[in-house]
């Protein structure tokens, strides 16, 4: 087992993709750094916290981007965002089997907030344009910082999310909600509550993550390989079906106070035991029940 959660973005790419196949675009030696951070006397990284490049996965050509949570929580700035946009546009030219986004991000980088927000919207537009052109985009979410803010929206724009139990996916992070609305709204230090609300298991049960895997890079690799044949579908029928499902979710669970209430309503036995189950047991216990 090689922990995805503990690994750096570079280690994830190295171990996820076919050995030795990854070639980086605009590598650290190109020094595509954020001038905005340096202007604010804040240390900047040579890759601006995201690694983009090409590789093979099971022999199939893919393009991949990996955000480094250890640098500013993976937050998106101008250069960081532009690297991802450039990768997605390159995929329009090269038509790889898929684009993999190894997300780990708190969202927009405040030091360059406007540039970051615009960049996220450009990533959104680029993902949608690429999927419209028939190239699937897959998201891997299992890092220490989770996937929040605009990147949380980006993740749900893609063809599928592969998540680990440790992975988190949402929009406003628990700390942000607590700071703004008070601890009674969301106690960000209650780890069990945080994981029940935005953690991998709940995302999987809601159908937002297509696969849930153990915290193991090899497990992420296997899940990504299994998805490679998927084809994007942004048709009216597909979106109408998604719309219906999202409407049902509000009707059924809109007044649920906690994830366990939702899990109970889904017909899962012993919902309070869900958080302690290992990945395999969890999948078995929830088979046929999730949305």
């Amino acid at each position, binding site marked *: 087992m090689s922990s995805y959660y503990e690994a750096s973005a570079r280690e994830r790419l190295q171990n996820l993709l076919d050995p030795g196949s990854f070639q980086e*675009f605009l590598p650290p030696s190109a020094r*595509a750094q954020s001038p*905005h951070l340096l*202007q*604010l*006397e804040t240390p900047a990284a040579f890759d601006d916290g995201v690694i983009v490049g090409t590789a093979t996965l099971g022999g199939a050509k893919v393009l991949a981007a990996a955000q480094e949570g250890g640098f500013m929580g993976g937050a998106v700035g*101008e*250069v960081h965002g*532009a690297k991802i*946009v*450039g990768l997605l*546009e*390159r995929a329009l*030219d090269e038509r790889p089997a898929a684009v993999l986004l190894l997300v780990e991000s708190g969202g*927009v980088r*405040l*030091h*360059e*907030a*406007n*540039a970051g*927000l*615009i960049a*996220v*919207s*450009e990533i*959104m*537009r680029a993902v*949608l*344009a690429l999927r*419209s052109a028939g190239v699937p985009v897959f998201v891997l979410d299992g890092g220490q910082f989770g996937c929040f803010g605009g990147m*949380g*929206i*980006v*993740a*749900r*724009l893609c063809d599928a999310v592969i998540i680990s139990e440790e992975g988190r996916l*949402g*929009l*406003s992070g628990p700390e*942000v*909600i607590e700071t703004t*609305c008070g601890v009674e*709204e*969301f106690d960000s230090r209650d780890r069990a509550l945080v994981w029940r*609300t935005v953690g991998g298991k709940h995302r999987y049960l*809601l159908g*937002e993550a297509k696969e849930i895997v153990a915290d193991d890079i090899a497990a992420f690799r296997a899940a990504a390989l299994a998805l490679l044949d998927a084809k994007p579908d*942004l048709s*009216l029928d597909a*979106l109408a079906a998604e*719309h219906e499902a*999202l*409407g049902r979710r*509000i009707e059924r*669970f*809109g007044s*649920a106070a*906690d994830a366990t209430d*939702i899990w109970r309503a889904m017909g899962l036995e012993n919902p309070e035991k869900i958080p302690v189950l290992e990945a395999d047991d969890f999948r078995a216990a929830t088979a046929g029940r999730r949305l």
Partner: protein
Amino acid sequence: MDVKTLLDRLFPQNHDVRFDGVYLSGEGETSRGPCAVIGSIDAAPIGVELAFQMAGEVLRIVREHPGRAIVLLVDTQGQRLSRRDELLGINGYMAHLAKCLQLARNQGHKIIGLVYSQAVSGGFLASSLLADRCYALPDAEVRVMNLPAMSRITKIALERLEALSQTSPVFAPGVENYVRMGAIHGLWEGDLAARLVEALDAADSADLRRQWGQQRGGRLLAQDVSKRVRHYA
């Protein structure tokens, strides 16, 4: 500007817009034909319901009025901050809205965004920033976060942020900053109906904002870096 005045000025010939709480939808007549109107009022926080309603309307327009232009008039203080919205997967609802707008774009609907009051952070991201072209009224407010809050979180002195914001459009609130950076194509003054028609005529489904940001000198790296990645050999 309040939304009723806005609608009168955008669609002086005729408009029929219904209000449901903070949500609005309907249509307005322009010299280029009828436009669909979708939006919100009262600086609405965008939660799962509002995103869902807007997405449903986009799907209805695609189904019932093929090719009709869509005007987004979204007044938002940002995403709704609540544990309940997170529990339901609010990011997925916003992504759904974005996908519906992309479907409309793919099917030939032009999409114009007009920030007439406020656009903040995630609420902006989920709405007007997804338009083919986004515009704003000159007194509109656009931001991610105000400088005092930004100073607290980044631990950078407020005075320093304020000083730098005089020259850099990169982080401080302000509609002009977003114009310089290319995300807001222009500010609408005078005859709003004429501005809307000009926008409809000019709208392009390609995302050219990096280019505009570079031309206007407000965002010098995005275009260059994305191109270097796209063509890196």
